């Protein structure tokens, strides 16, 4: 009954007048008790998809560059009812959580409402609508545009169906990647909540270093391009594939909105959201054959494959919710915020002209952090899952009437009869097209400054700790096909694998400790940004497992001092990073952001505590747990000196 009590908006084509009459009749007999339950939870009525049983070899064909690039609309602030509270409003349906930390200090100025619910949309005009799960029924989700110093509350309400056909899971927990967010609002993988419930995530929109610097923290820690996504343990890949993610931007006085109004003290990069500052949200999908009888082209959704994700990657490349779109630009600078939402594909991008010749673009920010100096990559720009790259393209270098293309290294399946753009540029390698349609109307921004930002000083480490990303052999097996794990253990939401003292700095070593294969792990650490200090590689894991050879830092790390929150670890690679843990306490995660690996529990919990007694207690607990599991205790505890092998 409650199923039909939804406001009949445009999202509910299935409700007929007859249904409405039935609902009216039902509501009158249901009485007051039923009324409270539909108020607290009304199910949406988008017809469930009928997904093909067998994974299709190819999606249906599409015509390249038919659709315009959609731009996610800015999220509109609302006044939430019931009003957000410091303590969880459990009796009104809020998921249980600890009270918001620093609530009085960062009382929310702005409130947003994001409702996870099913909806349909056409991923290409040649396709019929596809069923997906999105926030407020949109794909991509709306973008909250925020300011440092203006704290926000985002209420995530779960209105996913109780019964569903697809490979996703109707329970969610939303992580803001990579906000300096208190644990209770950080989307911890075990804190998921089911249909009908909601959770208020409190984003202070403050820089790291609130305790040390006062006010809103250390401005040198500024981050700007965030994204929020579902983090449900075991079902992160399918839920993200289904569309539960979106972008989140925070401005400040060096990175302002509306570049033409920007003060000269700011960076004055193109930043008119939707006009000169455009998110490019990348993902790959695969679709079942079009079902004209039901009027659907459904996404294929399930694949059991811990290597490449329990959600499938696919042969259709989707930018902002459209396959191979085109976008009209004018001869001036644009900023594109490229985001890889996974679930598993790594992008290797390049800007090329119609002959396939590479054209310059400038990277100004990596994973939300401005580079020290801008970087012009030669060759492919590699974008691991969950990474963000802010790039500036100056279209004034191109003539009006020409087109340039975003090229991907690998090829996709496009369609029958799609002519190659040129010998040097096959159309199936193109992600999207930019058409230069005229001279600029809004004045162009000044040249990109040669120094973008200063970096925060690295504090000396209080302790050293190593995280080893492993996939060991299993008894009787020669292939490395065991449980994806970290330091010998898989995710357990109630087990702490490392504890750090609030305010301290640690040097962490991240090791891709795969036994023989070369899986890449894009490692993500919640809460804090880090700088890569060194990289090394194990050339021969079988015969010389302890011999490591130093390798060069990535170009942006070496010369432009990139700060990151997703660290790409190639097979057998090891890096050291320095992190400082400030301002908040609680439960946080470190995991591989290949969502397939993450769902196979290459993810563990670490905690920030604020007393030495608690820290020591935690460490004793970790030692006991490891002893009980038959693992080396030493490997689970930090050291106070750098290990020699950690170079």
């Amino acid at each position: 009954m409650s199923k039909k009590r939804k406001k009949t908006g445009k999202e509910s084509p299935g409700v007929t007048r007859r249904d409405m009459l039935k609902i009216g009749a039902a509501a009158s007999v249901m009485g007051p008790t039923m009324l409270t339950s539909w108020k607290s939870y009304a199910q949406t009525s988008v017809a469930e998809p009928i997904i093909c049983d067998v994974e299709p070899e190819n999606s249906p064909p599409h015509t390249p560059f038919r659709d315009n690039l959609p731009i996610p609309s800015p999220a509109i602030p609302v006044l939430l009812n019931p009003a957000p509270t410091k303590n969880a409003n459990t009796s009104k349906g809020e998921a249980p959580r600890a009270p918001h930390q620093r609530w009085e200090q960062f009382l929310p100025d702005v409130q947003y409402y994001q409702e996870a619910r099913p909806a349909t949309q056409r991923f290409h005009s040649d396709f019929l609508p596809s069923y997906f799960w999105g926030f407020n029924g949109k794909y991509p989700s709306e973008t909250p545009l925020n300011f440092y110093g203006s704290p926000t509350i985002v209420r995530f309400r779960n209105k996913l169906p109780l019964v569903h056909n697809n490979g996703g899971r109707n329970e969610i927990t939303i992580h803001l990647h990579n906000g300096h967010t208190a644990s209770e609002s950080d989307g911890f993988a075990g804190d998921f909540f089911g249909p009908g419930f909601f959770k208020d995530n409190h984003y202070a929109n403050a820089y790291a270093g609130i305790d040390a610097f006062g006010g809103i923290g250390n401005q040198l820690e500024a981050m700007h391009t965030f994204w929020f996504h579902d983090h449900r343990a075991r079902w992160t890949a399918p839920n993200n594939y289904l569309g539960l993610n979106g972008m989140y931007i925070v401005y400040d006085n060096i990175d302002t909105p509306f570049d033409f109004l920007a003060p000269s003290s700011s960076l004055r990069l193109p930043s008119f959201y939707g006009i000169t500052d455009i998110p490019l949200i990348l993902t790959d999908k695969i679709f079942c054959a079009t079902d004209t009888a039901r009027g659907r082209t459904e996404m294929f959704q399930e694949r059991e494959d811990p290597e490449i994700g329990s959600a499938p990657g696919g042969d259709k490349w989707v930018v902002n919710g459209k396959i191979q779109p085109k976008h009209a630009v004018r001869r001036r600078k644009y900023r594109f915020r490229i985001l890889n939402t996974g679930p598993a594909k790594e992008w290797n991008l390049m800007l090329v002209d119609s002959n396939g010749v590479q054209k310059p673009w400038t990277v100004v920010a990596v994973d939300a952090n401005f580079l020290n100096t801008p970087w012009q990559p030669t060759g492919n720009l590699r974008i691991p899952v969950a990474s963000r790259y802010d790039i500036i393209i100056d279209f004034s270098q191109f003539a009006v009437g020409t087109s340039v293309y975003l090229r991907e290294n690998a090829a996709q399946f496009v369609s029958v009869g799609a002519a190659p753009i040129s010998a040097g540029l096959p159309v199936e390698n193109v992600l999207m097209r930019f058409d230069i349609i005229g001279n600029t109307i809004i004045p162009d921004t000044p040249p990109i400054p040669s120094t973008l930002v200063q970096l925060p000083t690295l504090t000396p480490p209080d302790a050293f700790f190593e995280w080893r990303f492993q996939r060991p052999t299993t008894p009787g097996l020669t292939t490395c096909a065991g449980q994806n794990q970290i330091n010998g253990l898989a995710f357990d939401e109630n087990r702490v694998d490392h504890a750090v003292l609030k305010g301290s700095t640690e040097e962490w070593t991240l090791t891709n400790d795969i036994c023989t294969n070369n899986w890449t792990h894009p490692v993500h650490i919640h809460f804090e940004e880090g700088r890569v200090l060194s990289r090394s590689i194990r050339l021969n894991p079988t015969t010389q497992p302890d011999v490591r050879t130093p390798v060069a830092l990535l170009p942006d790390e070496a010369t432009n001092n990139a700060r990151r929150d997703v660290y790409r670890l190639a097979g057998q690679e090891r890096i050291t990073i320095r992190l400082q843990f400030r301002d908040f306490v609680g439960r946080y995660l470190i995991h591989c952001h290949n969502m397939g690996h993450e769902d196979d529990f290459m993810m563990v919990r670490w905690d920030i505590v604020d007393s030495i007694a608690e820290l020591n207690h935690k460490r004793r607990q970790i030692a006991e747990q490891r002893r009980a599991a038959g693992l080396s205790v030493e490997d689970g505890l930090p050291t106070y000196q750098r290990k020699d092998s950690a170079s």
Partner: protein
Amino acid sequence: MNRRSLFANFMSDKPVEGNPSFKPHPASKGAKRFTNALLRTHEDKEVRFYDDLIKGRQAIINMMYANCEGACPLITSTLVKVHKHYKERMGKDLFMYSITLKPEQDDPAALKKFATMHGAVNLPGWTFLTGDAFDIKTIRFKLFRINHVNFDLDLDFHASKLRIVNDATNVYTHANPYTSMFTILQHISWADPPKPYDEQLKENIEIQKRIDREVKVYGYRKTT
């Protein structure tokens, strides 16, 4: 029916015929996913894989063979622990199926011997299965294939996975048998039928009390 046969029926793998509570989910792919192959249990009874064993039920499925020395005994002992944990539910709405990877070698007697050796015999709801080699291979590919040639053709790889399904709620997931007991039980519980809103709300209020206590004592939330 004497006491002995009543006991045997209760303890055996024989599914409850026509039990109305075993209703498949409307979106269940049914026999198309699981096959409806005719299999033979360790008690030497004939069963249909989907109709008699999976339909409308929650099940934990693994693959093993009787003379396997590495993984199978280890996983079987893990499953014995799982069985102990779910004693109340086993055989009622939760079932365990161990399917042989080597049906040519493992006849019902061999399976029963293996089960007895590992303390897994006569446990309600736990059935060891053998059958035609082609059918078993089909089931193996239907349930455990990951589209990776090296792994898919390696029999040992199939011995190292637990498939968890609930045909009543259309949940299809897996757990790694070498991970902690906590993680395995948690994955099984994620295939449980969903709780009604009001029941969850009551639970949430209890969880909230615990969190508040933790925050008061330790300064932050410790458990989920």
